[in-house]
């Protein structure tokens, strides 16, 4: 597993999810290093299909480790346009590379302005320390 890190180019949701904004109205979602570390080795990922809609602050997927299951919360609202197919066979990518190969979905945002409510990396890290 990688060491703790929170890239500056991402926006963070306090439920330990990240969004990488792409262009005006697209974003890639995933879970943070802290989330995958708390969960332990991910053995199962159950995500949405392309075309599904996701609602900010609501669960859109599940990640499961040997020990526990966790809801994945959407940091922003939109429609799924791409999913990370590799996770079906290799969900451990979420542990190995939570911000890269372990991305979960790509979303066309319906309310891009929601991004204003997300946290910067430093703010998110402060939240983790509190």
């Amino acid at each position, binding site marked *: 597993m990688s060491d703790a890190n929170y890239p500056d180019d991402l926006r963070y949701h306090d439920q330990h999810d990240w969004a990488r904004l792409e262009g005006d109205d697209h974003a890639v979602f995933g879970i943070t290093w802290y989330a995958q570390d708390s969960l332990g*080795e991910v053995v199962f990922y159950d995500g949405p299909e392309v075309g599904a809609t996701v609602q900010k602050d609501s669960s859109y997927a599940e990640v499961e480790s*040997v020990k526990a299951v966790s809801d994945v919360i959407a940091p922003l609202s939109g429609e799924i346009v791409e999913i990370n197919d590799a996770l079906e066979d290799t969900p451990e990518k979420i542990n190995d590379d939570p911000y890269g190969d372990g991305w979960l979905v790509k979303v066309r945002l319906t309310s891009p302005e929601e991004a204003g409510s997300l946290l910067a990396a430093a703010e998110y890290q402060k939240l983790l320390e509190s």
Partner: protein
Amino acid sequence: MSDAALRRTPFHEQHEDLGAKLVPFAGWEMPVTYEGIREEHSAVRTHVGMFDVSHMGEVEVEGPGALAFLQRVLSNDVAKIELGGAQYSCLCNETGGVIDDLFTYRLGGDRYLIVTNAANHETDLAWLGRWSREFDVSVRDVADRYAMLAVQGPHARAVLSAALRIELPPRMRAWPVKIGRRPALACGTGYTGEDGVEILIDPEVAAPIWAELLDAGVVPCGLGARDTLRLEVCFPLHGNELSAERNPIEAGLGWCCAEATGFVGSDAVAEARANGTAEKLAPFLIEGAGIPRPGNPVLAGAETVGTVSSGTFSPSLEVGAGMAYLRSDLAEPGTEIEIDVRGKHRRARVASKPLYRKVG
């Protein structure tokens, strides 16, 4: 319970040094994993791992009435334990409900040691104390006298006897040894389905013994792997499979009940054995995706026919696996069922015990 109130075992510093993930468990701060549950699980299946199980309690029972007393409170036939022997038993209430499940070791002619589950230790003590008044026996809480380490896996005996230079008891036997120049007890028991030994040692020597075994290549394992290991071989866990509301017959523990001894609860157990029970505990495997969890409803057709008592991802079988209380007519190997995993119906099939069987 707040974290401040959590008790720590004599191995606590060792866990912290290794960067273990510590969690509250039955009032104790215990390691759930060090490097990952799958890795630790596999170490025990193929090599050797060690578990700090010092949270478990110990009760010493001694006196001329010890045998008669234990025969009254424990479900198994205690008269069968030879000197240096070990036996698994249930501690039942009057209605046959399981207060705890425990191992009893016979240390002397009329001296026995009972190992309790951490969460039940105080309840067990009170129960044993209450029944002991009718017998010429003393019941002593000796939990503080011992640190307990379970060393388990196909190489456990070789590694342990070489590292500690002691002669180990065979399976289901227990005898006194010297560990770290202090009196200790070595027991040929465990909770993983692998060969292995559990040692009860002086808390003073816990740290050096841990270090010695670590040097010998024994892999530290947490409660996470302990749970997946025991589940794969269908050992019940009190609080999941066993409770004061379930009798040993429905839990599949009829083999450790000798009703003829007249133990507390034996009438209820005899009745359950003779007439059957509405539900029975059965292991199952998920067919395809999905990981069952405790509390998940079990379905057959549109009907709810049971509840999952333990469920996890099985590291050895690499599928979702668990145990469930099912309507008795469905608790037969091969029966197709569905597990309602958070609203998704996952196909599963009742299996036979154990779910994991050693090859070769």
